[in-house]
């Protein structure tokens, strides 16, 4: 048991921290008022990722020949942790870095790797994910977007939903049905689709928070060259799953939760009850401490997983447990905050009476969205029960 880092890593951490202190983009007031997908914000976000990349802090574990550094797990973990700690803006090219990049490294052709990987790192090309469909949410494998191979091209027709960033992405990695007659997990392929292709239309969805983010995307006879197929034809489900389990940002998620909790404690010190700081109220103390136990458990759980990864141990269903526990915990933290705020809890960011800029009611809703998105808590429990514990699946529904 050793919670310290070797000296060279500590030195590296200090360098990252110093660099971030100096280079972290300031947040000009004007920009904050722009919509999340305003071209000026996008441009700035791309600049930030490029700057970070040039400093050597993006996807360091990728192979050198495609723009990475072949760095080890610990180095990458330190960078992830420091970025969260510094409250650096999230990378606009995150979908590319976390999802399609690793997939291409594992399954892509040499040509695909050379074509796409470097531009993912520099944010020259932004990616979005085309998985969910209106009738394929929890049951993702029932997706129906059709891709027919005609000569050397796929002709794609169908609809995707919950596509973050689709309104400005350059490329989409997309699961499509290429064999409608095969069992549902065996007729899917993994395609790379140029978002500027004729036949694609995008409609933004407004979330209950009032913010944009997700989109619906329609394909009408969109042509995709066969060379943009990743992995084998009809093997897309396996391709997508292999990288779903790569959860990179182990310390990052735990650090995010710690930051949220630290903000809650600050709030408890700020709020008053009967003329005293709320943090002195025994009821509040019990709640905070109960949360602290769960937050600290996740912190050390992340260290344990980092250790396992360094040692090359299989991670099993750890990603599902993390997703389930972290999202529910983050949400519970926001519930505690609303209870501290009382009548001020529901004031929006537009209200001059909002505490913490209306952060908590927004996070309260947002964290519920995180519980639902990326596989609901129920889906994670199915995975834990079936893959983790070996409990039997439900019987198949008979076709009606």
């Amino acid at each position, binding site marked *: 048991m050793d919670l310290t880092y070797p000296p060279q890593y500590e030195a590296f951490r200090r360098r990252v921290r110093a660099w971030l202190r100096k280079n972290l983009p300031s947040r000009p007031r004007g920009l904050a008022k722009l919509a999340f997908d305003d071209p000026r914000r996008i441009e700035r976000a791309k600049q930030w990722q490029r700057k970070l990349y040039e400093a050597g802090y993006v996807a360091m574990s990728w192979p050198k020949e495609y723009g990475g550094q072949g760095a080890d797990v610990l180095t990458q973990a330190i960078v992830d942790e420091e970025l969260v700690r510094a409250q650096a803006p999230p990378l606009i090219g995150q979908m590319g870095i976390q999802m399609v990049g690793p997939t291409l490294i594992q399954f892509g052709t040499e040509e695909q790797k050379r074509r796409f990987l470097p531009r993912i790192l520099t944010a020259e090309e932004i990616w979005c994910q085309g998985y969910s469909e209106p009738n394929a949410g929890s049951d993702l494998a029932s997706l129906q977007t059709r891709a027919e191979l005609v000569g050397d091209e796929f002709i794609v027709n169908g609809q995707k939903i919950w596509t973050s960033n689709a309104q400005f992405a350059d490329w989409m990695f997309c699961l499509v049905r290429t064999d409608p007659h095969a069992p549902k997990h065996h007729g899917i392929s993994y395609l790379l689709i140029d978002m500027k292709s004729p036949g694609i239309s995008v409609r933004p969805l407004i979330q209950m928070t009032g913010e944009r983010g997700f989109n619906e995307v329609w394909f009408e006879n969109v042509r995709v060259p066969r060379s943009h197929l990743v992995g084998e034809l009809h093997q897309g489900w396996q391709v997508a799953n292999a990288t779903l389990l790569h959860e990179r940002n182990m310390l990052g998620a735990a650090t995010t939760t710690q930051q949220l909790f630290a903000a809650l404690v600050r709030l408890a010190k700020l709020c008053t009850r009967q003329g005293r700081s709320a943090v002195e109220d025994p009821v509040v103390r019990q709640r905070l401490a109960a949360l602290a136990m769960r937050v600290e458990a996740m912190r050390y759980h992340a260290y344990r997983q980092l250790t396992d990864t360094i040692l090359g141990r299989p991670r099993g269903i750890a990603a599902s447990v993390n997703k389930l526990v972290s999202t529910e915990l983050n949400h519970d933290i926001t519930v505690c905050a609303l209870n501290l705020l009382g009548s001020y809890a529901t004031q929006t960011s537009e209200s001059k*009476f909002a505490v913490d800029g209306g952060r908590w009611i927004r996070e309260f809703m947002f964290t519920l969205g995180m519980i639902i998105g990326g596989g*609901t808590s129920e889906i994670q429990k199915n995975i834990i029960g079936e893959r983790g514990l070996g409990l039997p699946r439900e019987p198949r529904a008979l076709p009606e």
Partner: protein
Amino acid sequence: MNFGLSADQELLQRTARDFLAAEWPPAAAHAVFDADHDGYPRKLYEQMAQLGWLGLLAPVEFGGAGGTCLDAAVLAEELGRAAVPGPYLANTLSILALRQIGVASVRRQWLPLLAKGQAVVTLAWFEEDTAAWPFPLKARGSVGRFGLRLNGTKRFVLDAHVADAFLVVCRLPAGRAQSTAIVLVPREQAGVAVRPMNDVDRTRRPCEVVLNDVTVPRRSLLATGGQAEKLLARVQNAAAVLLAADCLGGAERLLEMAVEYAKVRRQFGRPIGSFQAVKHRCADMVAQIEPARSLVWYAAHAMDALPRQAAYAASLAKGHLSEVFSNVAENALRVFGGIGFTWERDLHIWFKRAQWNRYAFGSPEWHRERVAQECRW
């Protein structure tokens, strides 16, 4: 022994449900969220006035129905079920206050207008630190040559932006001591400033009201001392009961929405409602809502007939129902999944109303402590 609604109350319930289903469909509530207007659907309120609902608690002599608190709770449940915005709550509480206090001329002036839906009167009551009574008042009045002069800042004033008058709660010097007072202040009076307090629940419009050397005639002093305090306690209890009823209606509506969706939404080749994860979630909502309904009826009945239990029952109801509504809202969202998280679906309207209801007129925690006090624990 008859613990249930009367035939008249059941008729009111059915009428209100049918009327609001037709006249205030979710699209109407969406419009309140989507556009930047004042959240006061005047046409709907005119119709409600004609149906006699706005004056339900007003005495018959002033054009009201002279109804009971249980009648009002039955209606409030339906307004919650339909997520109706506007000054229903503000006006109803003002009617409750006005019918017992002040000079006859004030009652004659305002009660008929309120019953007809032709005026908005709202309590300018809570302040920076709290939205529940009692609390130490900071707003203060003084008696001068030209009448009363008021200074102070009021928060969480419902619908102040469309109000015609405020019932300002402040303290007044009474000999050497201070006395609680309720003063009628017309909206247009010099020194009154209103600022919106934007809430995620756009069916509710709380405001800040700043009173800066506002001067009103002496006859505007409607009640002081023990009478004022007793009245405010009663208004606080009524607000708790009406909000509990609103929560009940909202929770029922969300349950219906979730169940309906669970029957039609299919995943893995089956309706999602056939999965225990979803089915048991829906059953949990039933198990929360059904007993809670009886608590609302009891609390309303206590306001009408069991005065010594009124505060206890009101806190039981508001404390519990606001938790039930929030729980149901969260569970309904989990049944819907992503689609429930969108602005264009109906769910978020009730989801947000649940959040506002949770904290208005005393948080669940506040009501729990009040229950403890009422039990003399």
